[in-house]
């Protein structure tokens, strides 16, 4: 039989001013289970808590109701009080007679009557409470970072620095990501490779970091602290441990006509290749789509020239399984396709390029060795037009993206400035809708492009680019002059909107991490938990969460790492005991609960049941992962049989409150 104590707090006059507290404590004396009832000035004070503790011990209370301020204020306090007196902390219920009673009602009679009802509801509930113990789960002290761009590298370095092992999975043959393709970085104009490649080397040399390049995450199971991840190591037909990266094979390979993706297809590479000089790992990879040996069995040049004997045409994809305590998504971004914006003639002229292509064009290691030359004829351009917001801020979802891509204003200013710096003879026009430069030293940077370098910034958009002969006729508006402009350009550079990498969607499904309509990962809270996914143990780093520049990416990468470190530093995870629980005798295995669970906390197991006829029956039943469930209760309503219930907020408890209130 429950033995319940009721403790009514005056809260000075905060409650007692509008609620007759002694009437309340008196009125509930005969409620079911109540064996003790009292009131006191400040229940949360040390002496108030002592009253509770003493009563629990003296009256062998099995549950208590504290009538006081909001549970959001002192529920935790009174739970500790109860625990100190040997009572399970979840045998405590709060009747909120301050915020939701004395403070919102004026007269004593009304306030007192309502306080009594609220107290009775809490008593009815606590009658049905049962002791709860939070679950514990171990933590595997290893992290997985998915994506090896600057976001992933920085996150991995920071985690490793705290002493935890970390693996990077990168789908390309080398880490480095988009930043490796960039020339200079704003607003300081230092060279991207100079600041990135040392970090790549650090990652490679750090004994806490393992890099799985040319690999993809195949499957994720488990939950926070214990994710089991299958990683596919794609066959690169080169033994990574033997290849010295000498590059001889990449010079001798007879298949020379493979578009070089690192240079945005503006030149060619061989079928066996190392993406760029500072690649990490510096290991050759055979492109199976182009390799004559793999396709026809005839060639074998690379194998012949390789003194290390690293070539292995028989190599197969390999699946490895590893357990991780935390996972960081750092899958990055790509520029969108320009197919739907052919008014800019991207598909019609080689001299209309995207900004990322322009990066390669000005990069000393790029296809033109850093000389600004037109892709079509290799001539020096005299007039260059930049178009901003191509596909960004675009309401038509079938064409572009509704959001601002955030980085374009700054890199365009950088490009314009770099051209004017190296080639003062080139006229540079930038067509913009707004110039957005929030960031340290950003606006100063943009102003320098205008004031010191004489870049023509024109408020307006380009309507059409018409390739005519070797000229690009640009028709645009100048909104401030209220004129339509016609410029004969030699090169047009489009600031293409950026979008999350295509792999993010399938990864999100594997991780049961949520995404927004644009396929950016969603944060657990947009303001207060910006680097965590709502799925426990999954963290977000870099542009996979939203458009970001390098400084912002690096700081977010560090923030994600610190969250990971905080998790891995724990030996055990203590859960919230108010979570869902399925009664397997009643469960139909219908999957309704699984479909509404935002956390993927519900799985199904085939369970054996003894039947009355002594046979066994295997039935599919739901099983709640206590470490993953957050206790929202969505599943309890989806469940048609009522097998699913929520501890601490059971259907019976809530109905008993309803009954008490309506009595």
């Amino acid at each position, binding site marked *: 039989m429950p033995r319940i104590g009721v403790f009514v707090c005056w809260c000075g006059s905060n409650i007692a001013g509008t609620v007759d507290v002694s009437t309340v404590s008196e009125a509930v004396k005969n409620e079911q289970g109540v064996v003790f009832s009292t009131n006191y000035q400040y229940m949360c004070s040390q002496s108030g808590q002592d009253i509770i503790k003493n009563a629990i011990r003296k009256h062998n209370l099995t549950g208590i109701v504290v009538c006081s301020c909001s549970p959001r204020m002192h529920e935790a306090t009174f739970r500790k009080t109860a625990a100190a007196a040997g009572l399970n902390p979840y045998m405590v219920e709060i009747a909120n007679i301050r915020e939701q009673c004395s403070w919102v009602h004026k007269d004593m009679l009304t306030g007192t009557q309502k306080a009594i009802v609220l107290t009775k509801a809490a008593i009815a509930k606590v009658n049905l409470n049962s002791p709860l113990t939070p679950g514990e789960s171990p933590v595997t002290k290893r992290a997985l970072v998915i994506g090896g761009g600057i976001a992933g590298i920085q996150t991995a370095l920071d985690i490793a620095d705290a002493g935890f092992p970390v693996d990077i999975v990168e789908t390309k043959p080398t880490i480095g990501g988009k930043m490796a393709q960039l020339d200079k970085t704003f607003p300081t104009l230092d060279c991207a490779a100079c600041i990135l490649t040392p970090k790549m080397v650090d990652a490679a040399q750090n004994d806490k970091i393992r890099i799985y390049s040319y690999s993809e995450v195949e499957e994720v199971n488990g939950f926070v602290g214990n994710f089991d991840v299958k990683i596919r190591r794609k066959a690169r037909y080169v033994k990574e441990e033997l290849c010295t990266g000498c590059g001889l094979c990449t010079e001798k390979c007879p298949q020379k006509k493979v578009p070089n993706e690192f240079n945005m297809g503006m030149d060619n590479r061989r079928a066996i290749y190392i993406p760029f000089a500072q690649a990490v790992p510096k290991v050759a990879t055979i492109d199976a789509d182009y390799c004559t040996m793999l396709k026809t069995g005839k060639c074998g040049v690379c194998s012949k020239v390789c003194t290390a004997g690293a070539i292995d045409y028989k190599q197969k994809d390999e699946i490895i399984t590893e357990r991780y305590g935390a996972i960081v998504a750092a899958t990055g971004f790509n520029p969108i396709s320009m197919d739907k914006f052919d008014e800019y003639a991207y598909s019609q002229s080689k001299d209309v390029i995207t900004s990322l292509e322009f990066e390669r064009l000005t990069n000393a290691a790029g296809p033109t060795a850093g000389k600004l030359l037109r892709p079509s004829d290799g001539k020096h351009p005299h007039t260059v037009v930049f178009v901003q917001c191509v596909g960004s801020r675009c309401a038509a979802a079938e064409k572009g993206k509704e959001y601002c891509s955030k980085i374009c204003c700054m890199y365009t200013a950088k490009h314009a400035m770099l051209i004017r710096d190296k080639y003062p003879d080139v006229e540079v026009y930038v067509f913009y809708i707004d110039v957005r430069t929030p960031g340290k030293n950003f606006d100063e940077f943009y102003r320098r492009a205008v004031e010191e370098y004489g870049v023509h910034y024109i408020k307006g958009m380009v309507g059409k680019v018409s390739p005519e002969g070797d000229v690009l006729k640009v028709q645009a508006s100048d909104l401030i002059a209220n004129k339509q402009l016609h410029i004969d350009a030699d090169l047009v550079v489009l600031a293409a909107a950026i979008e999350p990498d295509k792999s993010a969607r399938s990864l999100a499904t594997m991780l049961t991490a949520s995404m927004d309509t644009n396929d950016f990962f969603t944060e657990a809270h947009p303001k207060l938990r910006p680097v965590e996914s709502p799925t426990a143990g999954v963290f977000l780093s870099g542009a996979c969460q939203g458009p970001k520049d390098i400084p912002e990416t690096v700081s977010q990468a560090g923030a994600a790492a610190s969250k990971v470190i905080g998790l891995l530093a724990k030996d055990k995870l203590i859960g919230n005991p108010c979570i869902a629980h399925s009664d397997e005798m009643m469960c139909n295995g*219908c999957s309704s609960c699984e*479909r509404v669970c935002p956390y993927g906390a519900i799985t199904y197991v085939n369970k054996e049941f003894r039947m009355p006829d002594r046979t066994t029956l295997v039935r599919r039943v739901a099983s709640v992962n206590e470490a993953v469930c957050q206790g929202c209760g969505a599943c309890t309503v*989806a469940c048609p049989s009522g097998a699913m219930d929520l501890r601490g907020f059971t*259907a019976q408890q809530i109905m008993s409150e309803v009954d008490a209130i309506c009595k």
Partner: protein
Amino acid sequence: MQAISSRTLVDIAAKKLASGEVSAVLGWKKGLFNYDVTPAVFTDEKDLAENFVYTDFCAANLSKYLVNETKKPEYRADNRKILVFLKPCDTYSFNQLLTEHRIHRNRVYVVAVPCNGMIDLTGAPYEKCVNCKSKKAVVYDELVGENGEVIDSNRFDEVERIEAMSAEERFAFWQNELSRCIRCNACRNVCPACTCEKCVFDNPASGLENKAISDSFEEKMFHIIRAFHVAGRCTDCGECSRVCPQHIPLHLLNRKLIKDMNEAYGEYQAGAVEGSRAPLVNYSENDIEPAEAVGKGGNNA
């Protein structure tokens, strides 16, 4: 008249039984009178030949029986199968049960049979046949005759008629209908969506348990909650109304929900596609607000 004769179906089933491919046949068995047809399991060819019928009185939807049939030890033991005859509308129920993992697909051999509509003992067609929604069998291992098409039926007309009433009229209408309920549970027991291991209405812990009709609230509660429990899972097979001894048009409750969900969240037919996600276990960020879902019907609420 059904286009397919009992003989044709008996031949199919007998052949499968004889070959050992199936160990039982779930079908319809004739009784004393021609209208007296009951669902039955046949295990030998003789019984099948003598007693199996497929006539205009075979309205019963057999899919629900498979939930318990396939649990029986003989099917669990090895890969033995039960053959079932399903009319087009029954295949939706079967598919829905597959979606909910209530039936092991590999333990069942489905023979889809065409249906020209079924009649009651007075010879009148059942409501569910008058407003037949589909002649298309959506799942089968073997198809007898030609497969039909989904029908653009007028099944929501009656719901619309009630919606157009005033609140008083609607209340009076349902008070009149539901007050006849005797809580016999026939609707629940026949419903292919009601296959819970333990029904909430039989479970004292659910707070909803009540076995006898004792107050006008009780029947409303029972029918609203039942409609909700099958919402998004009800294929509109019409069995609830067919078996109701009090002739309460229970399908109008389920159809209201189907209509509402179709209008608010896009067309959805439970059981049409195995594994599909029902509207109430799904959402969109731009869903209508509850306040927008009401007030479309008659005046003065």
